[in-house]
């Protein structure tokens, strides 16, 4: 007791938050994996996992155990340091953005006044992991995947930032809490529909989800950047991908869908998290549906789309916003 009380309370708070968030990340990956397979199943008029637990609900847990128990294969000729480093790199930075996201009015690990900037910079570290993994694998397919990931990430970061900028112009703040607070009356999705659409499209591209899953396009590159990974290495990439999706969806919720706002609940400052999660999972559901509907775009088409459509549209959007705000 003595030592704990001497520690700064802020530190204790952070440690607890990190622990909760890490456990949540695993839970989220399990839920998302299950949801994805179930939705894919029903979209294709089949049932999906059914064997482990009620309607296969424990399937992903069992899969996780299997993946962890598997031998970590390191092929000869790979760059061992990079090869081992990449999964860790893909996993670590995805925890950090969750620290500044306001899940409800009082549930936020830390309200940075530069929160949005922090999130943007952290999510873009993920591409480093793919690059390192693809390069370290010493496999041509992995290399292709890595190179595509980098180009894609650079191209899509710009529309993401530009669409965020429109919100920032309206709220004059980078703190996520204040942005949500500003949506008390009206969600920004109604004021900024264009920015919302641009953000969602770029977000899907940023997380390398189909139809923009070029770094792991399995019909072209077998499995892309994680071709050589097995066991725990693969599962960390998997975890990273789902957490990234969650981050993108939460940021979209914070910026456009009014965060924790919704019909009032008792203990609203805590239970606002219910609305928050509903909105996030609705977006995630949408992203899953998209994956199981469309073919994959080609690489140059992807870049063309970013430069020819998304960037000009978001620029126009910002211009209009700026003018309207000034008036």
């Amino acid at each position: 007791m003595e030592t704990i009380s001497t520690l700064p309370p802020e530190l204790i708070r952070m440690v607890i938050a990190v622990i909760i968030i890490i456990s949540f990340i695993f839970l989220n990956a399990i839920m998302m994996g299950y949801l994805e397979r179930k939705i894919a199943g029903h979209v294709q008029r089949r049932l999906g996992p059914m064997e482990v637990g009620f309607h296969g609900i424990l399937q992903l847990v069992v899969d996780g155990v299997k993946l962890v128990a598997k031998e970590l294969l390191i092929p000869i000729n790979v760059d061992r340091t990079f090869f081992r480093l990449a999964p860790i790199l893909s996993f670590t930075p995805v925890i950090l953005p969750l620290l500044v996201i306001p899940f409800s009015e009082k549930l936020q690990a830390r309200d940075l006044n530069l929160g949005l900037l922090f999130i943007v910079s952290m999510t873009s570290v993920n591409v480093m992991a793919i690059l390192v993994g693809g390069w370290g694998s010493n496999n041509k397919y992995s290399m292709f995947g890595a190179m595509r990931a980098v180009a894609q990430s650079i191209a899509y970061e710009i529309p993401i930032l530009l669409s965020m900028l429109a919100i920032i112009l309206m709220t004059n703040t980078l703190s996520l809490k204040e942005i949500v607070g500003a949506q008390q009356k009206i969600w920004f999705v109604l004021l900024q529909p264009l920015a919302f659409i641009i953000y969602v499209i770029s977000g899907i591209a940023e997380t390398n989800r189909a139809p923009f899953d070029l770094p792991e396009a399995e019909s072209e590159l077998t499995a892309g950047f994680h071709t050589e990974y097995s066991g725990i290495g693969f599962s960390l990439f998997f975890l990273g991908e789902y957490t990234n999706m969650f981050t993108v969806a939460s940021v979209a919720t914070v910026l456009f869908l009014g965060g924790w706002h919704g019909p009032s609940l008792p203990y609203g400052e805590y239970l606002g998290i219910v609305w928050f999660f509903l909105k996030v999972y609705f977006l995630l559901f949408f992203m899953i549906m998209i994956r199981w509907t469309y073919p994959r775009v080609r690489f140059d088409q992807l870049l063309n789309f970013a430069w020819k459509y998304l960037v000009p549209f978001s620029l126009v959007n910002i211009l209009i916003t700026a003018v309207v705000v000034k008036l």
Partner: protein
Amino acid sequence: MKRYFLDLFIGGKSLVDGLVVTTKALFQPIVTVQYPREEIDITPNFRGHIDLVLDPEKNTFRCIACGMCQRSCPSECIQIEGKKVEGKKKKTLGLFALDFTKCSLCGTCVEVCPTQALEFSKEYNLADFSKEAFHYDILKRLEERII
């Protein structure tokens, strides 16, 4: 410039259309079956490996060990041996072995048989670890059915 916006509009609409199709499918009934738990009825005309016909009157096989099926089989997977039985002039069937690993399910044997002694079984759950598991003793299978 007109093209640019037209592309965007038509493309966007087609994407929405696609999403409608899959969303509808999400709520439609399932068309698959959970295979080992439930099985679908198999058509009576299904052609599995061959089996000897059980003659309901004589309560035994009809085969006269003529060897036609053995000779006509393109894959040479049937082996037939007759055996002498005391008191009868003709040979009767002593061995009917089928190497199912080679069988191409063409049905020639069933068609050439002069006594219609062969039929196709309805078995399709066939999987095993060794090749030998598919070397069937058709006669023994029939004898099991007699009892």
